[in-house]
């Protein structure tokens, strides 16, 4: 019997159907608590600062991964960031076609180590690296202190 002759339907054999059930509650941690409380209450995005290495981490971390200092100083992330990379998703994780393609971006900020992955609030045809963008937040009442308090990033409109 060749490999190709074998059945791919496991139910044709004696079998047991199981599931791996697991639910989780994840804490945001020490640095995460600072970041998400400031985002929820004040609409600010914070980075944690390593003075020794002269760099700011976004999302903030409670330690510098390089010099291993504990970080306790937080600074505001510049309001305007830049799209470093984009993708447009056409199917969901099960492989089903999305009714509307979704635009996703990696957004970085001047002088900040790291960045954020989030929705890019533009039509797929307008999605491109290099766009100047700002976060669009939910209203204060809608914010709960999670990453989805940010609705996504939208292009900064020129005032001229």
């Amino acid at each position, binding site marked *: 019997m060749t490999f190709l002759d074998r059945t791919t339907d496991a139910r044709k054999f004696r079998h047991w159907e199981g599931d791996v059930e697991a639910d989780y509650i994840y804490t945001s941690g020490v640095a995460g608590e600072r970041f998400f409380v400031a985002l929820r209450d004040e609409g600010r995005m914070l980075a944690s600062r390593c003075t020794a290495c002269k760099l700011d981490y976004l999302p903030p971390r409670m330690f510098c*991964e390089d010099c*291993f200092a504990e970080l306790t100083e937080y600074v505001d992330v510049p309001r305007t960031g830049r799209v470093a990379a984009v993708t447009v998703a056409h199917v969901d994780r099960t492989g089903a076609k999305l009714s509307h393609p979704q635009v996703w971006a990696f957004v970085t900020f001047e002088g900040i180590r790291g960045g954020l992955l989030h929705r890019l609030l533009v039509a797929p045809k307008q999605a491109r690296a290099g766009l100047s963008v700002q976060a669009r937040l939910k209203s204060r009442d809608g914010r709960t202190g999670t990453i989805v308090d940010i609705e996504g990033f939208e292009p900064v409109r020129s005032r001229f």
Partner: protein
Amino acid sequence: MTKVGVVGAGMTLFRRRLQETGKEMCFEATKMALDSAGLTRGDVDMVVCGTAPDAFDGVAMKGEYLLDGSGGYRKPYTRVFTGGGTGVFSTIAGWWHVASGLADVVLVVNEEKMSSCQPHPQSVFANIWDPILDRPLKPNLVWIFAMEMNRYMTVYGVKKEDIARVAVKNKRNAVGHPCAQLADPNITVDDVLNSEVMAWPVQRLDISPPSDGASAVILASEDFIRKRHIKDRAWISGVGWCIDSTMWTDRDLVFPEYVARAAKHAYKMAKIDEPRRQIDFAEPYDPFDYKELHHLEGLLLADKGEAPVLTREGVTERDGKLPVCPSGGLLGVGNPIAATMGMKIGELFWQLTGQAGKRQIPHEVHTGVSQAWGDLMQYGSVVVMKG
């Protein structure tokens, strides 16, 4: 082979739930270990991370997730896991990095964040069972331990009171441990015997609960220790590890053969031919009180069936002839699977360098053995350390 010493250790509080993320806990333990050794991350050549399957923290690729807090950024970094056995095994993995001459300084960081899993990590443990033979019966992990404990009691005629003494000893020993989750200076044998029955003969106080926590140790070569004039060090003189049948139905439930084989390997390396005479204290794995007894026999520190007698006679108390789990063990300090390294390797280091504080064994000790138990309850890892 390069001679390897432990030069620093650190651990976080052990609690049912900590606010810190896994990587933040790793950072705290690692920072403490580095500070205690007077070293920085820059001194570290390689990093070994020990942590349970991803489902426990609920983060896939958990080793990679933990690496920044573990000091692994841009360094040779490896994750190892042998179930609860990781509590001692990750140090063995760190040891071979240095013993081979590949690295001078290796950081070993173990972590578990068991509180993430809802409502209880037991739902993850449920999936270790054979999917065809066992899982349709919806078994609970405690059943296996209960049957093993029952078999041990049946064969040697051990009374539950004598097993409960282990829980009492360890929870009292943990009173001197700053990280302890379950220290109790007033606990009695009756408290254990009257606690809730989970799966007879296992009762609530016979068992260590899940915990959040991290621990770290630093290993260094003899050359490095000499060059940096490091005074607080304990030498790793023997290592061993062994795994038994994959079928728990095929194992000797009364005697942990896998521990005995690992111990013999470690003793031979450490030139120990009379363990009862040459080993001054022990940190065997004690997630259940009967397991300390089981493991003492596996470590050849008690004859078969004799460990409950030694316990009853006070031999294994901190001031006894063979102190066992002076740290307070898993029963007293807590059981964040791999992070129990803090009470096994960490405690040997602290005892042998006179840094155990209120837990310090009152008489002089020169040689200690630590052991952890894990994988699918059939794995033993053993490390012998000398002052």
